[in-house]
């Protein structure tokens, strides 16, 4: 089917964009990359009255399309596309996990248009970026006609496609605090076909390559939203993952995750796969190899 009739606006500045959102309220949807919104429109899962195309904001504010070193953090702007992440030497240097994960994000044509911040706004439980941001302690900046505010990624995602973002707010940027080489990363994703949404995936960020001290672990594809797997983190803290019994890991995961049944996998399959991806991510960390 085709998208329902709607109105279209193309603001040139951030002020114009937030004012449009304030004016049209729930009836407005932000159109950035469109790679998640447009399928929804094409299937009429959503029929907004007004599409606010924010791509024009780049002309008045080119920093929205940039990846910048702020000193303390790497800032990813509102309109940075997945392909920009893929090509960024700065990202590859500071956050190898992000450089690794981007190859799993959909396909080249999707990556050319889809935006990093759009992925956070959409909050798909199977998406990579929400989990990466939670694991890496990222901070989001949200802006509306009332001003701006910041929120930690680990507090931002609250449920299935749900977040703390209020109607009228746009994600202006995401700051990922620099780690100065003091942390190690593990990343592993399982999908049926290359580029599919994840059946299960995990991001691990810890102080050690083998002993997972102060680990931050966030799964995707196996829970309603990206959130820290706190029981699992407590379990592995300071230990070598290979030395922890598999059933003890499984028990911690069962406390942290409520996977869903759908046409792709059952909840028990997902719980099993969560254990598999965690083991593979930790093994890749230990051996220093790529987890792909």
């Amino acid at each position: 089917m085709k998208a329902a009739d709607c109105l279209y606006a193309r603001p040139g500045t951030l002020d114009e964009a937030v004012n449009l959102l304030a004016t049209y309220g729930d009836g407005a949807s932000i159109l950035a990359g469109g790679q998640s919104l447009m399928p929804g429109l094409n299937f009429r899962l959503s029929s907004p009255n007004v599409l606010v195309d924010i791509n024009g904001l780049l002309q008045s504010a080119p920093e929205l399309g940039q990846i910048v070193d702020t000193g303390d953090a790497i800032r990813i702007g509102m309109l940075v596309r997945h392909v920009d992440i893929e090509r960024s030497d700065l990202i590859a240097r500071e956050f190898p996990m992000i450089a690794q994960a981007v190859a799993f994000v959909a396909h080249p044509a999707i990556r050319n248009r889809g935006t990093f911040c759009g992925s956070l706004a959409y909050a798909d439980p199977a998406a990579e970026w929400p989990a990466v941001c939670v694991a890496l302690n990222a901070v989001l900046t949200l802006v509306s006609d009332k001003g701006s505010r910041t929120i930690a990624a680990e507090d931002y995602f609250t449920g299935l496609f749900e977040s703390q973002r209020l109607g009228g707010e746009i994600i202006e940027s995401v700051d990922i605090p620099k780690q100065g080489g003091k942390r190690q990363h593990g990343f592993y994703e399982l999908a049926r076909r290359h580029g599919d949404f994840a059946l299960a995936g995990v991001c691990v960020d810890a102080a050690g390559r083998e002993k997972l001290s102060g680990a931050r672990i966030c799964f995707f594809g196996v829970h309603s939203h990206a959130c820290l797997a706190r029981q699992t983190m407590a379990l592995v803290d300071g230990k070598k993952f290979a030395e922890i019994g598999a059933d003890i890991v499984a028990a911690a995961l069962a406390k942290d995750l409520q996977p869903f049944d759908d046409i792709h996998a059952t909840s028990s399959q997902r719980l099993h796969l969560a254990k598999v991806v965690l083991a593979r991510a930790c093994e890749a960390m230990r051996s220093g190899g790529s987890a792909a």
Partner: protein
Amino acid sequence: MTAQSQKALEPVSELAFEAIINGERISCRIPARLNLVDFLREEVGLTGSHVGCEHGVCGACTVLVNGQSVRGCLMLAAQADGANIETVEGLHQSGRIADLQDAFLRHNALQCGYCTPGMLATLTELVEGKKSLSRDKIRAAISGNYCRCTGYQSIVDAVAEVIEARGGKVTS
């Protein structure tokens, strides 16, 4: 905000559109909700690009906008205002994909041809300037272009041949 700029910002149900499509300037008015591939097919008559899944996974609608491969079904025509758009018709006419087309024929990399225009758009972006690539990387690059006929091996063979003929190197 002036009254004039306020008016300019009012959401509209149809708008003016102008772009370069396969080297030709096209100007018209378009409905807001019309997506790019439907616009190209229905309004411009360029039926080479195909509609498949309408949610971005099959790749049949892939075209080039400002040199980048994009899903024609996931972009509003309005978003391509002012852009340089190339479809398979233009890529063919310019001769830019002549070696890809030739290799496709010899390797039997198409049968029904439904996926082929989108596949060629994706491959135009892939093979340009590639010094070295593995077959796995080729597969990853075309993973968003579904083919029901060929089983993909012949497509990968054709692409590998083109990359090497253009001076690159393909590892297994």
